[in-house]
């Protein structure tokens, strides 16, 4: 008995948070006290440690000890409330008793779930009129990913995550329910303990090198800079709630339009102090590479030429030694992580202090990320009815990331001649060794030279603080106030060696930058509750303030005195340049929320919010938006209550919300940009202005239902949503006749419709084995109803990484078909309809076709003609995705959990393959010596006739490389309907039984685990891995997912470690 209760204690530790949650809901007045003691057990008669006991209506509370015993002071007429996650809350009238033993019964989980919603308000999940999903911090932590958010993929319906690459310190693109904004950020808002934090990504367009178009500019698609969510310590997360739509987020204002990820941090628990230590050691290796051919050597047109970078030369003589350059370049990554926390305190003051450190070396030499994360949470009852809590979190992050993308390591490795030893990257005199006589700027760097001689590092110091007070003078009134500050400073350094491809023309260059940012924010709100017979009403009114700024300063210099000395002082003073940007945005909001519950069967809620944004013209600065929701608790009707064995719970819900979105800063009057040309000065920047700018308007509907069968053995949550965004604020490329490169438009409409289904089941459960399955199904697509100014296309220039293909949003096909009608630009529906009218299209060049769809061939050359217009050639949006989480536990000591992630459909632009084809490295060019005739008809004037001339002209792709270098079109490299099934993470964990721990007398808990991530991928994709993005999340709109070019795929990792509780 004793032993068992100790083993249960470990579970309690993780779930005691709710004690604190519930301890403030009810307040009362004190009279003569009696001491009540007792034991709390579960249905099986086992003691329950960690059960929260609360004197109803007061702040008095306690927790059961490891033997399930408690002691609490109460008054004879008080009511005690017993709460424990997974159990039904239990209320007992004290009635003067001094001994109250309680048996708690297991709950249908969906019924009891308290969920953190907007503003950090804890709500009973069953009342919500919108879809929200909650994930425990432990589950995320057990995925062993250093980026806490990465573990969410597949675990939350409607959430899509795409890493930029698979290396430590890289970024991850996050979207909820598709594309909202066509060109601005679609990243959801991150809220920690009730206040928004910075989750953004440094926008590399702020750098001098980027603005001035210095070779090696980054456009957010070469240097993979992490988003600031990487600073969150997974071990500090108690739980994450994902509010998917604007319905849920109405109270956060515009920022909630993209959905909200609410993070609740772990708080200290009263009682004997506890110390937890976890560690983890990881080995990672890369196993997915694009394939390259080794049959033909360097040259052009079938003739060997050692001085060309292309592989269209003669056959490599058999017997020529080939080097395993891929093997020599990539290494095994290693990563270690240590988490330490201790917590404790008395009922009136609890604390939790945590620290974590990890040091990750990637599979690329010189790639490294180190992070130190320290946090302190304090919770105190300051005065009667006044509770305060505070969190201070300091993060130090160092990342060292070699350049990827164009001129980056991935392509350099592939392009390096296999007949040469890649490890010989220096000449005997220490200078760069080249393999051709091309100029140093025309030959790609040896990747080892690249990563060893060039540097790209950043170092971030960040402090997050959050202070909140809750005052509950009366049981129907409370007031909450929060203040937060998120202050960070990043120092970045980019160093290009004077002999490198990027640095050569400038005899080396350095750029240092600082990004100092802060968010100061706060909110204050009052809640009122009133009950009149069967009507339960509540009203919340509040206001919020948000003040952000980012101060970015870049210093640049070139012409090194010493080739390897990384300092601006090592550059020619006449070449030194600066660029400075300060962005400030402020927002004030006032909001109210009313809820009326009729007999707990029908619940209505209404919210309204007015925002005042600094970024809009004064006349449009203030804007109001409402939301409304209704929840119908079917099973609360008497007829269902009787019969709850099959349908244990059913709820129907519907909601509607509007959100207004303000503009980015400084757009209402055109800016002048500093000019680096002789004499300096200012000229208009690229961006046109719009003095009459209005906020964007998001309208969203959601209907859905929650159902629970067989007392929670099977749960289902369904949601259908439709979300429109009108009056999009877009910086749209237009005719330069406007006077600018980009006009600032305010119009157009997108609509996203989708389904989300979450199914949870416990197919098997007894005392020995517990099996739980959770499945998330997501299906949505974003349609373009219209684009502003009726343009054909909006595109993201950051995503235009290789060839003529880029991420675009296109007008509906009828519009395009009516505009591209000539023989030289014809829209051909069977090819171009794919992606037309969607916000996730691939825009690119295709082959020119006649109206019947035959490819037109140049009669003089036999080569296919290209349609030099950006038309849709693919749609990156998957048909649907499924995440399947399985958890199996055996005797509660041994558990196995794994996540299988399935994606069906969606196109990928295989830019790597296009690059390899155009340079003669692709294995698909091995048939180059075979006679070849382009399938199509000659453009000889008869192409539109009844009998067009079928092309019969034979071309040799061997003796003329032109076919590959010039005439292949991106259309060929859009891989259609890419599916995958991947084992995203798998964890086997063993917790030592309490009998063992008893004997040791040292540990309160002890566990060991082994874990693997990204171990298995089954896909019809021909490249390495379709799960990459060509750009960081700083690129707005739909982002660069589905563009596979120059970015490393996720390596597979194996980890093992210990968890120790003292």
């Amino acid at each position, binding site marked *: 008995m004793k032993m068992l209760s100790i083993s249960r204690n470990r579970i309690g530790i993780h779930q005691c948070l709710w004690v604190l949650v519930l301890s403030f809901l009810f307040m009362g007045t004190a009279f003569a006290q009696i001491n009540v003691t007792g034991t709390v057990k579960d249905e099986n008669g086992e003691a329950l440690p960690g059960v929260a006991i609360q004197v109803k209506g007061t702040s008095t509370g306690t927790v059961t000890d490891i033997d399930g015993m408690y002691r609490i002071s109460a008054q004879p007429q008080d009511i005690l409330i017993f709460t424990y996650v997974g159990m039904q809350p239990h209320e007992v009238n004290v009635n003067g008793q001094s001994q109250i033993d309680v048996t708690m019964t297991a709950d249908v989980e969906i019924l009891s779930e308290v969920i953190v919603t907007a503003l950090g308000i804890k709500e009973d999940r069953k009342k919500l009129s919108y879809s929200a999903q909650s994930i425990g911090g432990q589950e995320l932590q057990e995925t062993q990913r250093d980026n806490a958010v990465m573990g969410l993929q597949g675990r939350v319906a409607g959430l899509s995550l795409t890493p930029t690459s698979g290396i430590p310190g890289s970024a991850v693109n996050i979207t909820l329910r598709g594309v909202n904004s066509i060109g601005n950020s679609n990243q959801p808002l991150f809220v920690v303990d009730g206040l928004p934090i910075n989750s953004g990504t440094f926008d590399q367009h702020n750098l001098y090198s980027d603005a001035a178009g210095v070779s090696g500019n980054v456009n957010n698609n070469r240097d993979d800079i992490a988003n600031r969510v990487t600073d969150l310590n997974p071990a500090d997360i108690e739980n994450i709630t994902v509010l998917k739509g604007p319905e849920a987020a109405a109270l956060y204002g515009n920022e909630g339009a993209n959905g909200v990820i609410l993070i609740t941090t772990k708080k200290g628990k009263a009682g004997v102090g506890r110390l937890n230590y976890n560690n983890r050691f990881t080995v990672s290796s890369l196993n997915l590479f694009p394939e390259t051919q080794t049959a033909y050597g360097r040259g052009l047109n079938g003739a060997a030429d050692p001085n060309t970078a292309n592989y269209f030369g003669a056959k490599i003589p058999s017997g020529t030694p080939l080097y395993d350059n891929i093997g020599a370049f990539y290494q095994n990554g290693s990563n270690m992580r240590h988490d330490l926390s201790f917590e404790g305190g008395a009922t009136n003051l609890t604390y939790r202090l945590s620290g974590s450190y990890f040091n990750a070396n990637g599979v690329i030499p010189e790639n490294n990320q180190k992070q130190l994360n320290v946090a302190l949470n304090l919770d105190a009852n300051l005065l009667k009815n006044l509770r305060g809590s505070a969190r201070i979190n300091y993060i130090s992050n160092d990342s060292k990331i070699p350049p990827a993308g164009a001129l980056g390591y991935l392509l350099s490795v592939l392009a390096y001649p296999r007949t040469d030893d890649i490890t010989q990257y220096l000449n005997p005199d220490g200078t760069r060794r080249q393999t051709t006589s091309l100029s140093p700027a025309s030959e790609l760097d040896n990747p080892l030279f690249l990563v060893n001689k060039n540097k790209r590092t950043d170092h971030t110091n960040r402090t997050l603080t959050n202070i909140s007070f809750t005052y509950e003078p009366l049981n129907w009134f409370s007031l909450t106030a929060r203040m937060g500050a998120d202050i960070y400073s990043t120092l970045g350094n980019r160093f290009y060696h004077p002999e490198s491809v990027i640095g050569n023309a400038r005899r080396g260059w350095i750029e240092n930058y600082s990004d100092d940012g802060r968010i100061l924010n706060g909110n204050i709100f009052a809640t009122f509750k009133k009950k009149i017979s069967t009507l339960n009403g509540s009203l919340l009114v509040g206001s919020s303030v948000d003040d952000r700024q980012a101060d970015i300063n870049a210093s640049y210099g070139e012409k090194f005195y010493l080739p390897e000395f990384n300092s601006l002082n090592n550059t020619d003073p006449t070449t030194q*340049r600066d660029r400075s940007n300060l962005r400030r945005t402020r927002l004030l909001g006032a909001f109210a929320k009313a809820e009326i519950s009729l007999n707990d069967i029908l619940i209505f809620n209404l919210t309204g919010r007015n925002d005042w944004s600094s970024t809009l013209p004064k006349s449009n600065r203030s804007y109001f938006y409402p939301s409304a929701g209704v929840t119908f608790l079917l099973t609360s009707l008497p007829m269902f209550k009787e019969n709850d064995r099959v349908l244990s719970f059913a709820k129907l819900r519907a909601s509607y919300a509007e959100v207004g979105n303000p503009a980015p800063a400084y757009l209402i009057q055109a800016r002048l940009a500093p000019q680096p040309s002789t*004499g300096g000065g200012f000229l208009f920047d690229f961006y046109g202005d719009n003095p009459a700018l209005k906020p964007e308007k998001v309208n969203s509907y959601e209907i859905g239902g929650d159902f629970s069968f067989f007392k929670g053995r099977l749960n289902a949550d369904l949601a259908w949503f439709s979300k429109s965004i009108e009056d999009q604020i877009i910086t749209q490329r237009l005719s330069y006749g406007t006077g600018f490169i980009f006009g600032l438009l305010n119009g157009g409409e997108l609509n996203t419709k989708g389904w989300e289904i979450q199914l949870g089941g416990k197919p098997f459960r007894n005392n020995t084995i517990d099996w739980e399955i959770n499945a998330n199904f997501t299906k949505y697509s974003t349609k373009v109803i219209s684009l502003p100014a009726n343009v054909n296309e909006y595109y993201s220039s950051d995503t235009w990484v290789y060839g*003529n293909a880029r991420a675009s949003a296109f007008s509906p096909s009828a519009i395009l078909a009516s505009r591209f009608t000539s023989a030289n630009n014809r829209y051909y529906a069977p090819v171009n309809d794919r992606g037309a009218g969607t916000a996730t299209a691939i825009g690119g060049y295709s082959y020119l076709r006649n109206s019947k769809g035959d490819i037109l061939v140049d009669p003089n050359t036999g080569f296919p003609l290209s349609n030099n217009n950006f038309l849709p050639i693919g749609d990156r949006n998957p048909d649907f995705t499924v995440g399947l989480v399985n958890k199996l536990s055996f005797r509660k000591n041994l558990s196995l959990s794994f996540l299988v992630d399935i994606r069906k459909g969606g196109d990928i632009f295989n830019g790597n393959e296009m690059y390899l084809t155009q340079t003669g490295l692709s294995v698909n060019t091995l048939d180059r010596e075979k006679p070849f005739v382009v399938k199509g008809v000659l453009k000889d004037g008869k192409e539109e006739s009844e009998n067009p001339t079928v092309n019969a002209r034979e071309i040799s792709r061997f003796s003329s490389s032109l076919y590959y270098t010039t005439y292949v079109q991106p259309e060929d490299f859009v891989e259609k309907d890419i599916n995958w099934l991947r084992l995203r993470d798998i964890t086997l964990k063993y917790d030592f039984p309490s009998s063992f721990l008893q004997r040791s007398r040292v540990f309160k808990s002890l566990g060991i685990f082994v874990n693997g991530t990204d171990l298995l991928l089954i896909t019809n994709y021909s490249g390495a891995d379709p799960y990459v993005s060509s750009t960081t999340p700083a690129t707005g709109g739909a982002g660069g997912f589905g563009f596979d070019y120059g970015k490393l795929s996720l390596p597979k990792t194996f980890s093992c470690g210990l968890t120790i509780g003292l």
Partner: protein
Amino acid sequence: MKTNSKYKFSLLALFLVFASCEDFLDVNFDPRNPQVAQGFAILPPILSQMARGESFDTRYIGAYTQNWCTRLANNVWDLHGYVAGSDAAGELWRSNYWSIGKNIDLIVDDATAKEQWDYVGAAYGIRAWSWQSTTDYHGEIILKQAWEPNRYVFDYDSQEEVYAEVVRVAEMALENLNKTGGGVAESSLGRGDLVYKGNREKWIKFVNGVLARNANHLSNKASYSPDKVIGFVDKSFASNADNFAIPHAGTNSSDGNFYGPTRNNLANFRPTKFIVSLLDGTVFNGVVDPRIGLMMTASPDGVFRGVTPGKVDSTNVTNDPRRIPTLWGGSPALAASAQPGKYIFTDKADHLIMTYWEMQFIKAEAAFKKGDKTLAFDAFRKGISAHMDFCKVTTANKEAYLSSAALPQSSDALTLSQIMLQKYISMWVAGTIETWVDMRRYHYDPAIYTGFTLPSPLAAGNNDKPAYRVRPRYNSEYVWNLETLNKLGAADLDYHTKEMWFTKP
């Protein structure tokens, strides 16, 4: 009571927040980048954009005029073609509408308020020049609807209308440049004027130069008036000291000359056989022009060579004594940073927008057409002499050449071809856009351009016609203004071969 006061307190807090809200929210101005500026801060980069537009586009058009070509085979530009779906050769478009574009109005607005008529005049002078260059380059362009607020698709106007607009804007420029008083002062204009240091007289000459070009380009038309041309030329530059030369600090690639080694834009470019033939005596009666070694560099064997458009430079082999050096004067084996730089191909060399010698050659041509050969002969010799001075040809060598068999020694012996060829030499790379105007006026006629042959075959889409215009900038027009282009036939693959209004009778 207690509750009530708390409630009041929170209301008060809300009130305080919103009462100060207006001030709190007034942060929507960029503290690091201005949103208005004075003329002296806007004029310098506008001048640099003039150089940028011409030099970026010369990279491509220089192949049409055979000033240079790439050393590679079948480069489409060398073959009078173009790269589809590319902004290449669209830089003048970019500067006319954007980087110079509305910035002119910023100067005009600010300077008008301050009665700085010299700034207003200089700004309009640049705009007149820009319209002239842009229409000569692209033909029909956006004129009347340019910069119209809330307009996203633009109609094109005829070249005739743009020519009239050049005259109108130039006249406004002259009117303002002739004003004194108010805020007009050499020291004031000089703050922003990198070219003339605030000298209004020279700006007036420049604007007359624009008008001279405008009138001279109409030489094929019945309305052509040589007297008008000569009149503008005479009010224009009087010596090389008046040249419109945009300086380059040359410290790095942002402020260095586009043609200089630091920018590294010309690594694959070589002089053509045609320009070499004009300087090495092939065309000019066996007399080697003293400028040849000052403008270009001989191969290691001492022979000056050029490339044939569309053909690979077979000398480009390591250690080949015939290997043609780069335009920077070094071996192609050297990295750009090790190239010496030469003539206008150095980092600090000025960019020549308009020169005294160009004006003299315009005058020579007009006078020749008028029939005043004496005047033509005088201007012809002044033109050569001025360019030789610019090239730093010694007086002795200059005199020797001027009196040599290369040139006519009397006005009677002067031919139109000699005028145009000497103009071609003097404006080699430094005036390519204008040279292209000339060559199109004469329809690439080998009788005028002795020894000039079009590449054969021409680029695939040309239908055997040489280039007569550059397609409007791809990412401005072909992507965002396509319907207008369709109306003009600009979507045709050979639109670039369509003859210009100004070259037609």
